[in-house]
């Protein structure tokens, strides 16, 4: 080897800031104009805000104390202008590409803020209820999205989360009603989640069935079987079969005493605490352990994993089955965590929303959690607004988070990159 041979470097250099790829430009203009539309709506709302003070209630149920009032129009205007600045900065490329996500977040917060000022002007908005409800709606979404993260990181698309929710919800209700044990109910729900996962795993990993079709079929199957059993047994004998104990809230000492957020976050049921733990555990396991490294390797480049002696299919089975535990628990929340009884198709598409959270969270557990909280927030906001009565129909509002998902998936927050081998069965000769 001679001293002077240069090592060639075929790494490409980032394009200079002056030149923008045509694809990037199109994306910026497209996304940017959408952001501008939102910003202008926010500003418009501010202009039409009247009624003096917007009051926010900080402790649920307490209508006398702990109120927080702001001048509605002034606040809405400030937020509206901030939003326009954020959207404008994105469109005009005034900040580096990597910060565009923050701009979108800022715009989102401004938009929600001016919206709330508009809606609550002259009225009292129950802010504590809003956050409490957010967590209620978000908990199953988080668990479902985490299940999706585990599956898809291993290369198996899981459309069947909705089905896993349904059987989990059903089983938890029945087991809690018949045994009276909440622990048994949760364990049983997790196990039926695993059973559904096993169906998904066997057909997708072993028999190479198209995973999207398979997932949809499993959802239909879950809906059918829980509906049948509901008609046959639960309705016949509702008193004994469909009266589960709803989990009771357990206050965590100290943390639960934090003003405002304490009661919301730390006076919750065991299932909500399990969800917090699940986010941390899935994140840690996926990125810091041997099993996690192997899961990600079979989802990205299964052949490379195979050539270093990793049993690709076995790793995929384990990821899909563990994900079943999470999805089953997520299902249990619908009955024993919240509603207190099972009804037909009660999960109402939440499994698919969990899937959207997973994509919006870019296959990352924390990201998926944030997305799920966002969806939960919007859902709760819609029901709150019906209570305090605003001119906008709640159903229209309910579309907003999904619109946001489409924008996000279309590439607002940088390019979305799924695991490379997601949905591809691994076949050896």
């Amino acid at each position, binding site marked *: 080897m001679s001293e*002077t*041979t240069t090592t060639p470097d075929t790494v*490409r*250099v*980032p394009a200079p800031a002056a*030149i923008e790829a045509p694809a990037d430009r199109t994306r910026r203009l497209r996304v940017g104009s959408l952001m501008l539309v939102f910003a202008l709506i926010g500003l418009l709302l501010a202009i039409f805000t009247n009624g003096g003070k917007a009051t926010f209630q900080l402790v649920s149920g307490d209508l006398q104390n702990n109120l927080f009032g702001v001048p509605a129009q002034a606040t809405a205007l400030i937020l509206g202008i901030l939003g326009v600045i954020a959207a404008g900065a994105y469109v005009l490329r005034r900040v580096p590409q990597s910060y565009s996500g923050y701009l979108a977040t800022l715009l989102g917060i401004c938009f929600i803020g001016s919206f709330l000022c508009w809606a609550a002007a002259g009225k009292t908005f129950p802010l504590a209820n809003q956050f409490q409800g957010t967590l209620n709606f978000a908990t199953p979404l988080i668990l479902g999205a985490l299940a999706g993260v585990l599956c898809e990181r291993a290369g198996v698309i899981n459309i069947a989360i909705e089905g896993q929710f349904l059987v989990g919800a059903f089983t938890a209700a029945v087991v809690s009603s018949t045994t009276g044990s909440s622990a048994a109910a949760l364990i049983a729900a997790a196990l039926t989640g695993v059973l559904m996962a096993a169906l998904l795993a066997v057909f997708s990993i072993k028999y190479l069935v198209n995973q999207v079709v398979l997932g949809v079929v499993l959802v239909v199957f879950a809906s059918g079987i829980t509906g049948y059993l509901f008609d046959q047994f639960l309705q016949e004998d509702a008193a004994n079969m469909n009266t589960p104990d709803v989990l009771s809230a357990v206050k965590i000492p100290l943390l639960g005493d934090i003003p405002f957020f304490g009661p919301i976050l730390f006076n919750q049921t065991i299932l909500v605490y399990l969800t917090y733990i699940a986010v941390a555990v899935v994140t840690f396991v996926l990125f810091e*352990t*041997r099993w996690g490294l192997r899961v990600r390797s079979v989802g990205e480049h299964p052949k490379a994993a195979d050539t270093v002696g990793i049993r690709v299919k076995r790793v995929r089975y384990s990821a899909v089955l563990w994900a079943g535990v999470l999805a089953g628990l997520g299902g249990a929340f619908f009955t024993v965590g919240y509603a207190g009884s099972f009804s037909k198709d009660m999960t109402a598409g939440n499994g698919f929303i969990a899937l959207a959270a997973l994509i919006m969270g870019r296959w990352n557990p924390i990201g998926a959690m944030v997305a799920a909280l966002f969806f939960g927030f919007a859902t709760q906001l819609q029901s709150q607004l019906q209570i305090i009565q605003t001119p906008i129909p709640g159903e229209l509002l309910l579309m907003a988070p999904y619109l946001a998902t489409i924008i996000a998936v279309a590439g607002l927050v940088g390019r979305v990159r799924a695991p490379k081998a997601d949905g591809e069965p691994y076949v050896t000769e």
Partner: protein
Amino acid sequence: MARMHLELSGLTKSFGSLVANDHIDLVIEPGQIHCLLGENGAGKSTLMNMLYGLLQPDAGEILIDGEKVAIHSPSDAIAQGIGMVHQHFMLVPVFTVAENIMLGREYTRAVGVLDRKKADALVTELSERYGFEVDPEALVEDIPVGVQQRVEIIKALANNARVLILDEPTAVLTPAEIDELIAVMRQLKENGTSIVFITHKLKEVKAIADTITVIRRGKVVGSAEPSATEEELAELMVGRAVDLVVDKDPATPGDTVLRVEGLTVIDERGFTAVDGVDLEVRAGEILAVAGVQGNGQTELAEALLGLTPIAAGRISLDGNDLTGRTTRDRLDAGIGYIPEDRAHDGFVGSFSVAENLVLDMARRAPFGKGLSLRTDEIEKNAQERVEEFDIRTQSTDLAVSSLSGGNQQKVVLARELSRPLKLLVASQPTRGVDVGSIEFLHTRMVKERDNGTAVLIVSTELDEIAALADRVAVMYRGKVVGVVPADTPRDELGLMMAGASKSEAEVVATENPTTLGTI
């Protein structure tokens, strides 16, 4: 390190009716560099995949130090001390170097938590021992191909490989990098590691082999000494005398046909793929674009055809501006295109030979009529092309995917040449093609040049460039570092492919000749 005596005896593997390996016997002596020489599709990779446990032999056995061993999976192979660097690297692009190296044999602390420090230390230690400069924490997708290959080698060494299989390792390297690889191989050999080196490049074989085994159509057809001439090796590999030099008269260039000015392409990751390239190709000449894979040549060719949007620059053909025109407009203007990945972009595999031959002309007379196709005309055309281009197929109704690589490429070339062309753009026209077809394709492209067509060839193979080019444009990191005459010495081209200017390359090449350059 313990040495290994490896013997393959009567290994046989068939895929359907195709016998990929037919009773292959092979002995790898300890501490030797053993070259497996053969054309694409001769069965070299199949053989090595059986040795590495990725395929199971139908018959035959593998003996290590005289004892029969069963290798059912790559982990068995690794446990036996067999390591393999695959032609397409087996690295997870989004993992760091250290993660890739420990994958499958992870260092862990309690309860399976990864010990990244230990993995980093191992990478650092191994790369220092072999003089590699590898950052354990770099993401694999961010490092150059040459360094990725070193990561693959470190991966095998970390598993204490006593036999290292290198499958076509030089395809992605510059001549200087090949030189460094050869040095590494010699160092490994001195430490007692045996190396199986799979290639179809004769120069490399002569430069490094201790023993040469030649495989043709799934059978061992002989062995040779490294002192054998290239012609002798080629004859053994192909089975008949091969003319390694294309007959071609000096070019008689006419007017400028293609003019490219300031062409810039930004790839989908936001990186500059083609960086302000100016080029001219004249009627009746072949301009070859040389460079290591990934330096923007692919994007350049695609931009010429309008398959990739361009960020800046102008493209004109015979003085007519084509910038911003659709691909169909450009084809109609007289550009023919042989894409780099023929199976992906060159034809529709499940369509018949006849259909593929009119893929771009089916909408026009005489092949299309109103909404219907004139099958008789299509068939007639197919018969003529098959004859003219010596396409070896049992029938023109056969799916193109069932043909050999060489014949597939002939179908693509035949189709492109059946329109009147002003410019032919050929990207890697002979990749994965047998020597017989290479001769044919080369001759045919030279003939097209002699008919007055401007020809632009993108190739990473210096042999191909030497055989075809009238002028050579060398690309490095998206820029053309120089346009030089075809007879520029190999070493100079190699240095330019690493970014040196023409004048620098001249000086360095004389002072430091490389191993391959001096053969």
